[in-house]
Structure formats: structure tokens, C-alpha cells
């Protein structure tokens, strides 16, 4: 039986969470199919990082070369294509991250193997690969069937597999790098850190997240007022930043900050996955949204289906009352 492969994602000398999630997923699949999980590690000066995940997979293939110091989809693609062609795994997992989004479809295309992206789950049923994906703004899930092929490629969504401990001792296999330099046509230059604003939403105990549902920029004042009553800071989802109502450093989500406050209150946020990944680990989540079908209610501990402008003034009063007691 062919193996399960996954690609380790790391950045700035750290293994990214998605890698552990994928390894959790990969191990479970391997177990079911009675096969092994191979983690492929492309990196530079990698010993320490490789060592840190040694208990996560059955085998770690390491390609240690300076070219892999930073992520470059093109270099990664060349190397991975070589490995997959040679090893012919049943399934290769890549993270559906900025990294994987660049890599996965191109790799699948190059190899001519069936692939799909942004999966919440993969299962093998009767020898056939079935993936679960989200569609239509998170309102529906889809089960996806693949064209039959000995090898498949799938990118996995962040945050879908709670990481589990493992105590395997991986076999380390070092491989000569098929590439020695970044291609001319695509070169990594540098990282750009987000500008730091006056409020650090990652440090706050109480975060009030606002989304499209606040309708108007002027309504932000109302939210600010509420947040200060409750002793929190205001964060937001992507559309609010795109509309330039709040600065980028207030954005919670996959491309923004990840926050884990004691209390996260969402106001008019529908709960697109991109936002949810940035706040799902908050202590208590209270969601206020008019749309009872909004995906945010799948994440919240407490939900109120109502107009936020109707609830907010009353909520503020109750908090004030509570504080005065």
C-alpha cells in the first residue's frame, strides 16, 4: 500500500501549526490504511526543526539546502515533483495556506495527478479518496470525489484537525536537493512586517470583532464605545480593513492576527473561515448576528440572532449595571 506524504510548512525558523495538523490527519489516514506517514521537509540548516517533529511521522524526508530557507513555490515545486514522482505516494497533503495556495495547484498540474484545494477533511472510502470542502461563503459543505489515479494531492485548511500527540520515532532520510538555486524568474526578497498600531489586539483579554454587519463607518463609534465599556478592544474582519474603516493591524483571521482573548464578542460577522481561524481558540465566544444561518454560530458559545444595533445599547446598559453592583 502506498504511503501518505505531507509537506512540512515552516517560516522564519519555526514549524507552522498547519504542519502538526496535517501530520495528525496523515497519521490517522495512514493508520486506517495500514500504511506510513512521510513528512517531507524542505529547508536549510534543518536539524533542529526536524528533530522537533521526529515523533510526528513515520519517516521524514529531509532536503537540506539554502534554496529552501524561505518559501519559494517554484523551487519547492521542482523538488517535490521529483520526490512524488519517485515515491509515488497515495496522497500528498499540503497546507492550504499562502504557501500551499501558491504551490499545490501548480504541483498537481505539473504531475498530472488529481488534486483539490482547501479541504476540511479527507477520507479513503473503499479505496477511493473523498474530500470535504466548504463552499458558498461557508454556508454549505461538499463531498468531493476524485478522478481515479494511483496518487493524489490535496491541500488542507488550517485549523481543521486538532493536533494530537504522537510518539513515533521517525526514520530520517536525507535527500540530495534537486535544485541548488532559486530560479531567476521568481526570487524571494524579504518579509514585510505589518505596521504596529496603537492597539495590540493579540494582548487584550476582551476583543470585540466587527464585520460587514455594522453597515456604516460611523457605527464604529458605537462599537468603540461598547468596547471601552466592557474593557476591550475593537478588532474586525477583512472587509472592514478593505474598506479602510480600520487599520490592517486590527484584522483578525488567516491573513490578519490570531487572537485568543478570554472573551471574544462578534458583531455582524458572518463567520467566514478566514476570520474564524483567527479567533476560534478564544475562551468564550459570543456572536451577535441577524442571520440565523451565519456560520459564526458554529463557532460561538453563545449566540444572539438579532440586529446588533438593537442589542448593543441594551448590552452596554447591562454591563454598566453589572459593573456598578
Amino acid at each position: 500500500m502506498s504511503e501518505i506524504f505531507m509537506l512540512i510548512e515552516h517560516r522564519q525558523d519555526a514549524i507552522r501549526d498547519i504542519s502538526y495538523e496535517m501530520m495528525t490527519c496523515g497519521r490517522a489516514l495512514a493508520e486506517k490504511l495500514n500504511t506510513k506517514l512521510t513528512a517531507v521537509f524542505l529547508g536549510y540548516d534543518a536539524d533542529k526543526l526536524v528533530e522537533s517533529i521526529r515523533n510526528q511521522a513515520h519517516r521524514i524526508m529531509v532536503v537540506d539546502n539554502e534554496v529552501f530557507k524561505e518559501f519559494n513555490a517554484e523551487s519547492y515545486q521542482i523538488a517535490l515533483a521529483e520526490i512524488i514522482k519517485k515515491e509515488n505516494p497515495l496522497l500528498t497533503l499540503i497546507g492550504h495556506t499562502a504557501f500551499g495556495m501558491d504551490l499545490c495547484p501548480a504541483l498537481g498540474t505539473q504531475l498530472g495527478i488529481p488534486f483539490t484545494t482547501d479541504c476540511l477533511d479527507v477520507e479513503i472510502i473503499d479505496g477511493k479518496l473523498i474530500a470535504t470542502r466548504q463552499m458558498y461563503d461557508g454556508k454549505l459543505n461538499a463531498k468531493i470525489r476524485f478522478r481515479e489515479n494511483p496518487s493524489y494531492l490535496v491541500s488542507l485548511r488550517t485549523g481543521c484537525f486538532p493536533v494530537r500527540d504522537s510518539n513515533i520515532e521517525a526514520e530520517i532520510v536525507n535527500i540530495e536537493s534537486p535544485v541548488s538555486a532559486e530560479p531567476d524568474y521568481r526570487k524571494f526578497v524579504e518579509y514585510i512586517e505589518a505596521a504596529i498600531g496603537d492597539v495590540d489586539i493579540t494582548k487584550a483579554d476582551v476583543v470585540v470583532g466587527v464585520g460587514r454587519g455594522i453597515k456604516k463607518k460611523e457605527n464604529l463609534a458605537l462599537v468603540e464605545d461598547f468596547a471601552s465599556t466592557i474593557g476591550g478592544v475593537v478588532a474586525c474582519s477583512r472587509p472592514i480593513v478593505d474598506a479602510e474603516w480600520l487599520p490592517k493591524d486590527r484584522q483578525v483571521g488567516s491573513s490578519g492576527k490570531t487572537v485568543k482573548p478570554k472573551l471574544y464578542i462578534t458583531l455582524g460577522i458572518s463567520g467566514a473561515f478566514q476570520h474564524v481561524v483567527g479567533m476560534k481558540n478564544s475562551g468564550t465566544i459570543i456572536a451577535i448576528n441577524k442571520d440565523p444561518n451565519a456560520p459564526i454560530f458554529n463557532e460561538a458559545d453563545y449566540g444572539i440572532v438579532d440586529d446588533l444595533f438593537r442589542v448593543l445599547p441594551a448590552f452596554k446598559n447591562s454591563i454598566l449595571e453589572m459593573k456598578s453592583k
Partner: protein
Amino acid sequence: MDIIVCIKRVPQTAEAKVEIESSGKDIVKDRLTFDINESDTYALEEAVLLKEKFGGTITVISLGCSDADDTLRIALAKGADTAIRIKAEDFDELDGYKTAQLLSAVIKDIHFDVIFTGCIATDDAYSQIGATLAELLGIPHATLVTNIEVIDSISHVHRELEGGLQEHIEIFLPALFTIQTGINVPRYASLIAIKRAAGKEIKLVGQNEISKDQLLLNTQIEELFIPPVAKQVKIITGSPGEVSEELAGIIREKGLI
């Protein structure tokens, strides 16, 4: 600079009720509003900005049924010069891969320096067509682009990574970029341009031009279903005053503030 922009007409589902059709594989579409995919509007705008800077032409391509002509015409009114519609009705079932193959079949005969697509379509949410298409055409690509500057056929591109981080990379043209929302402010169409666009022909490409035989489908939707609730939310009901009381109680009890 000749630019190709791939756009898609999608149902607007963010605030609408989405229902599954009887086949279980599609949604009920007749009560939904359709519009150009959000990130595609940014892609189109980025193309127009580049054209304003460097001259050249913009070709918009969409794979869709005749309704997509409206979307293409909007693109023409906003600054595209030529519009091509690949007749979806000619090609049966579609997935991201097949879509990319169709696009590449059309694009391979067109001169271009840059291809733009949106970074994600809000309906099927693959985020895969751009990179697939680039691979099929044999050009480099970058996804989730938040800034582009072109100096002498080298593009300096910012990609959005996680956690507020961005990376700056250099890519030779011709290349493909998938554009993230917020990269620019999409423009309105002027009435003059609308009038001009109204008279323009939309070039149709169908099975006569592209052979169906070589097209491969990677995936198929087996079934659609409403996502299971991951976490059991407690819905609090009542008047605003009542729910607020209850919430405040929870907050106090748990010592959240």
C-alpha cells in the same frame, strides 16, 4: 503591456439563504443575485491601473453561460478592451482544473505580459485556478497579491502571508497573479465607457474551438450538505434587554471582564 484578466460571475451568497437543489449537487440559484466575483473586481482594477501606466490592452475572459456576458460587458466598461466568453454550456461538468485547462486553451493564442485572476471565487472557493493556469501556460505565478510594481519586465510583488506578514518577491513577466481584495479601490464605469461597451462584441469560444476530448476533470461534487455544527452554540432568545441581562450574567459568572 498586454493583460489578461479572468473573471467569474458568482451568486452572492454571503448574506443570502443558500438552499440545496434536489440533485444534491448544486444550489437553488433563481432567487439569488449574481455579480462579478469580489476579488475579480480588484484583479480587473489592477489591470486597468497597469494599463493606465504602461498602455497596452486588456482582455477579459470568463467561463460561463450567456448571463456572464453582462459581467464581461461591465469589465469592458471599466477598462477592458476585448472580452471573450468560453461557453460553459458546451463543456458539461466543470471543476477548477478543467476551468484552468479551458482558460489556457484560449489564452495560449493571445499575447500577454500579465494575467490577473481573483485570489478566490466566493462560490466554489478553490483558490486554485490561477496557479493551475500558470502551470499549464508555463509561466511563473504568485497568489494572494497585495501590491504590484513593474520595473522593466520584472514585477515586484507583495504576497499576503498569515498573521499580518507579507513577503516581497520578484517575478519575471510574463506571469500570473491572483489578486487579494483591498489591493486597490475598484472603479466605477463611466457612462461613456458603458455606452462604448454596449456596442462591443463579446467573442464566444465553444466546443468548435476547443476540443472536449483532451479535457480532464480532477474532481466532482458528490453531494452538498449543510455543515454539521462543530460546537454546540447556546442561542439566547428574548428582548434585547433580556438577552443582555443573560449575557451580562454569563460574563460575570465566568469572570470574563
